[in-house]
């Protein structure tokens, strides 16, 4: 059809709605079908088309008037002419299409007429053949009916004979019942029962016939006897659970009263379980009511063994019994539950006692395995006995908690042991020429061993939450155990305890009695606490949180910063204490030296006093000691040279003027004013103030304490001229050697100035020494 839709001249009404195409000249191949389709009725697609457009030249609602008006009014002349040409071209094409279609249809009509004529001839043949077939079928059915009628009678007789034979066999069995029963009652009661059960219904049904009744009575008698026998067996013999169950089952089948039976069953089972419990109890050492005077001997078997035996024997039996009770007596467990609960409680108590025997640290994995096995075995039981679940979980949790506590104590002991070692190492006399282990080594050893121990403990404890351990999935072990027991109870508690112990060294021995800790130990602990604050605590907590992930909803945990603050406070306290102890030692030396000397009658100074050298030596030693553990710290930059000069100028020329005699009634005000103004410019020095965590700060603290002591002591003495000069020499010497230790040499300088000024004030004849001489003496010394 598409091929014929070529261009062809044709005539038609120009206004025909069907024949006109779109304004675009390029028509598609479908176009010839369009008018035909429309002729045979609008397709569904077209029906569904939306609002009628009277100007659509291909649409069904085309209105020529409207179209014309629209075109005329909208289009310019050129477009109108173009459209007119296009329309006429289209009309011609459509006319030729129509002609082609007409020819085609005509051909088809002719061939269809031929075909119909041929069919008419064939049907006439077939009709005759169908009639033959129907006659044959009727003959076949008639002969088949004849055959079946001949066989029917014989079939019925056969069936009747088979029925008679079955009945006869049943009667035979019934007659044999009592004999069989008798035979089996002794040896195979179960079989007898089965047999009786089968026969019983029939016998009961035909009991009105005398012969059947005889059979029934006889079998009844036999069964009664059997029941009697079973009962005696139930009552007096110790049966294993399986036999017991069988026995009771048979009795039940014999229609014995269930109530009574269940009671007997339980008492039997009870006796058996009691025996097992007693066997377990025998393994435990007898409870010592008087308190354990002597430690009980170690239990014969380890805990795993104990739990194993306990669970396989007791729990297994209990489960079996409970299961069979349920099977036997149906859902009525009112009696079973209290019975099982009582026994389970006793078992738990026994186990608890056994766990309590696990005093030492022993092998945690063994304990965990034992608890795991216990818990697994118990789960079976717990399905029967929901009340026991909590008790069992609590038992396991308690055991775990107990173990964690024990680890905490072990850790503490370990730490104390380490400290003891360190003390010993510090106190050990060092052979000359051979240095003992340095403080950093000791510190590293201490920190490493403590951390190692803590890690080991964590690893042990982690066994409790290992994935293959059944009870690890309990909510307690997931949440509370991790947080409360391990994180808080073990890790946090240990860190806290460590801080407390460390503080104890600073606080405790200051009172009377206990031997004071050596200063080096204080220093060591201070560093340890500081390290904890800086890194170790966060490391430990991270480690713990990794190994024991805390639940979101778990109880509140101690945050790391709080612990850090605690450790820092402890470190601060220790370091302050260290400064005080060392400062006091030096100060004591200075005080004694000032108090015991006769400052009035002394001779002209030729040397720096030995005690000053000793002070410098001590402070140098302290410097070395602190330097081993703490950083250098910042010092205020100031050239030593200038300060030295400043000091010398100050002490030799200005100081006497500064503390000019202030008690002349005439001029008390101006001198006071002078000294006070000077004071205003120098900062107030806190002597026993907290120090920072660095060497310089520590040393400054010690020096401050020492010099302030010197100042106060000098003020209490009365000096002669040479006494003053001696103080001057000593002061200069100290200035020479101490400035380098202090963070701010002005502190040293200020204090020494005050010493010099006070000495001048306390001197009867204040004639200071020439500064060059002072320097000479100091350099020589």
């Amino acid at each position, binding site marked *: 059809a598409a091929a014929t839709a070529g261009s062809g001249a044709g005539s038609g009404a120009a206004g025909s709605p069907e024949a006109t195409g779109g304004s675009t000249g390029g028509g598609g191949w479908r176009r010839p079908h369009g008018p035909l389709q429309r002729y045979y009725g609008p397709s569904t697609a077209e029906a569904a088309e939306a609002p009628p457009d009277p100007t659509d030249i291909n649409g069904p609602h085309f209105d020529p008037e409207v179209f014309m008006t629209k075109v005329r009014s909208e289009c310019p002349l050129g477009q109108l002419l173009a459209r007119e040409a296009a329309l006429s071209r289209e009309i011609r094409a459509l006319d030729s299409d129509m002609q082609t279609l007409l020819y085609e249809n005509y051909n088809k009509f002719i061939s269809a007429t031929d075909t119909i004529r041929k069919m008419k001839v064939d049907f006439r043949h077939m009709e005759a053949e169908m009639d033959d077939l129907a006659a044959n079928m009727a003959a076949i059915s008639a002969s088949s009916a004849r055959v079946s009628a001949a066989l029917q009678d014989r079939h019925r007789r056969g069936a009747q004979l088979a029925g008679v034979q079955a009945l006869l066999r049943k009667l035979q069995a019934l007659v044999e019942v009592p004999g069989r029963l008798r035979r089996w009652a002794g040896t195979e009661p179960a079989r007898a029962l089965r047999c009786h059960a089968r026969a019983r219904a029939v016998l009961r049904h035909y009991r009105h016939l005398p012969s059947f009744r005889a059979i029934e009575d006889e079998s009844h008698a036999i069964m009664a006897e059997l029941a009697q026998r079973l009962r005696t067996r139930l009552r007096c013999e110790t049966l294993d659970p399986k036999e017991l169950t069988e026995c009771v089952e048979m009795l039940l089948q014999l229609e014995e009263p269930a109530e009574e039976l269940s009671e007997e069953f339980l008492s039997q089972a009870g006796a058996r379980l009691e025996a097992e419990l007693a066997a377990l109890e025998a393994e435990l050492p007898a409870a010592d009511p008087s308190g354990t005077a002597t430690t009980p001997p170690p239990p014969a078997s380890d805990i795993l063994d104990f739990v194993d035996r306990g669970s396989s024997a007791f729990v297994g039996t209990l489960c079996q019994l409970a299961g069979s009770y349920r099977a036997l007596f149906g859902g009525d467990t009112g009696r079973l539950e209290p019975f099982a609960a009582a026994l389970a409680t006793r078992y738990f108590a026994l186990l608890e006692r056994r766990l309590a025997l696990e005093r030492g640290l022993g092998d945690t994995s063994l304990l965990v395995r034992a608890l795991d096995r216990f818990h697994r075995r118990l789960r079976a039981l717990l399905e029967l006995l929901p009340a026991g679940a909590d008790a069992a979980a609590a038992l396991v949790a308690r055991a775990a908690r107990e173990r964690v506590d024990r680890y905490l104590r072990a850790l503490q002991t370990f730490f104390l042991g380490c400290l003891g070692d360190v003390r010993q190492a510090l106190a050990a006399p060092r052979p000359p020429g051979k240095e003992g282990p340095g403080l950093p080594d000791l510190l590293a050893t201490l920190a490493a061993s403590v951390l190692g121990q803590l890690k080991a403990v964590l690893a042990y404890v982690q066994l409790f939450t290992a994935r293959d351990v059944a009870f690890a999935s309990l909510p307690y072990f997931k949440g509370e155990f991790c947080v409360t027991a391990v994180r808080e109870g073990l890790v946090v508690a240990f860190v806290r305890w460590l801080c407390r112990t460390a503080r104890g060294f600073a606080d405790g021995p200051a009172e009377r009695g206990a031997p004071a800790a050596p200063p080096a130990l204080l220093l060591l602990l201070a560093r340890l606490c500081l390290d904890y604050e800086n890194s170790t605590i966060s490391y430990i907590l991270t480690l713990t949180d990794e190994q024991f992930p805390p639940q979101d909803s778990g109880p509140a945990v101690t945050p790391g910063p709080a612990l850090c603050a605690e450790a820092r406070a402890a470190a601060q306290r220790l370091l302050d204490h260290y400064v005080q102890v060392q400062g006091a030692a030096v100060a004591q030396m200075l005080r004694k030296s000032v108090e015991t000397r006769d400052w009035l*009658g002394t001779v002209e100074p030729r040397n720096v006093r030995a005690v000053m050298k000793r002070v410098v030596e001590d402070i140098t030693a302290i410097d070395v000691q602190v330097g081993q553990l703490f950083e250098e710290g910042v010092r205020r930059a100031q050239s030593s040279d200038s300060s030295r000069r400043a000091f010398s100028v100050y002490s030799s020329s200005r100081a006497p003027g500064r503390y000019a005699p202030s008690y002349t*009634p005439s001029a008390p005000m101006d001198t006071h004013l002078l000294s006070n103004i000077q004071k*205003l410019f120098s900062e107030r020095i*806190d002597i*026993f103030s907290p120090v920072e965590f660095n060497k310089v700060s520590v040393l400054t603290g010690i020096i401050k304490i020492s010099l302030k002591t010197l100042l106060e002591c000098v003020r209490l003495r009365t000096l002669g001229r040479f006494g003053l000069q001696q103080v001057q020499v000593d002061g200069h010497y100290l200035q020479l050697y101490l400035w380098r230790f202090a963070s701010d040499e002005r502190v040293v300088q200020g204090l020494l100035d005050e010493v010099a000024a006070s000495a001048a004030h306390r001197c009867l004849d204040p004639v200071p020494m020439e500064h060059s001489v002072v320097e000479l003496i100091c350099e020589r010394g």
Partner: protein
Amino acid sequence: ARALTPQTAETDAIRFLVGTQSLRYDNQIHIIDFDDENNIINKNVLLHQVGEIWHISTSPADKGVLATCYNKTSDTKVMTCAAVWRMPKELESGSHESPDDSSSNTQTLELLCHLDNTAHGNMACVMWEPMGDGKKIISLADNNILLWDLQESSAKAVLSSSTALEGKGQLKFTSGRWSPHHNCTQIATANDTAVRGWDTRSMRQIYCIENAHGQLVRDLDFNPNKQYYLASCGDDCKVKFWDTRNVTEPVKTLEEHSHWVWNVRYNHSHDQLILTGSSDSRVILSNMVSISSEPFGHMVDDDELSDQEDQHQEEKVKEPLQDSVIATYEEHEDSVYAVEWSSADPWLFASLSYDGRLVINRVPRALKYHILL
């Protein structure tokens, strides 16, 4: 200057005596009058020519009588002696001279008697019998306790009994106090790190607090209202409170100062108020309610209570007053060597520092009313 004392026998005017220390000039005793209403300080000067004053104390019975410990220096030797003096009559009750002519008009003390110590060593301090008639004094000289009787209107001092501390170590007494309790038969002394109690009748030691402080004990004082309570202070920067019936542990320890504590004083009437002076140039006033004689604040009488139930309720709310530092006074620029409460006004105290500055302070008003009401 180190020596400061209130005029103990004076109960009306606020008056303190200050002794000076100077090696090269004549030493003086300044009588400081404080006029509370007008906030004016008056000063009278008495010459004390024998030497620099290390300790001063006044007679509880006679306003005009005082005792000093002073240094007598020769070229090669320093000796600390003690003497009893009488001040001129017109100064006894504080004549109000104008400050400008006080300097020109210096008067001299009248020597009553020397406490002869040639055999005993340096005098550390002189204590008057607190409740007595000004006849008995005790002086501490090196390691001796000397009990003197003043006879013939204090013109003559007779050594009535003495005892010596013997043993190893540092035995020099640093200070002592006479207990106002037990009929004035007990004193306490400090030497090195120990505090010792003595019975003045038998002159025997009755208790001893060994290692009361980590270092030297500088001063001590008796609680005026609780007979077994004692405060001590020392070079370990601490102030400790003791119950002398249990000498193993202090009842309480204060650690507020940052250097040696030189002085500790109980307030005479409100023994929760503790004053301490230290060489860190600070004076600290503490409120030790928990170990005072009025741990629950002022007691209300029963009949009063029945009338004023409501008031009592309010008081209950106030009651839990904590032990605390009330105030830290930082007026001093140098070490504070002496603090004293006024004998006349229980809310007033003076402190004295090395550079000679005397500061008079009051207990904060709010606290005063809290204690009173």
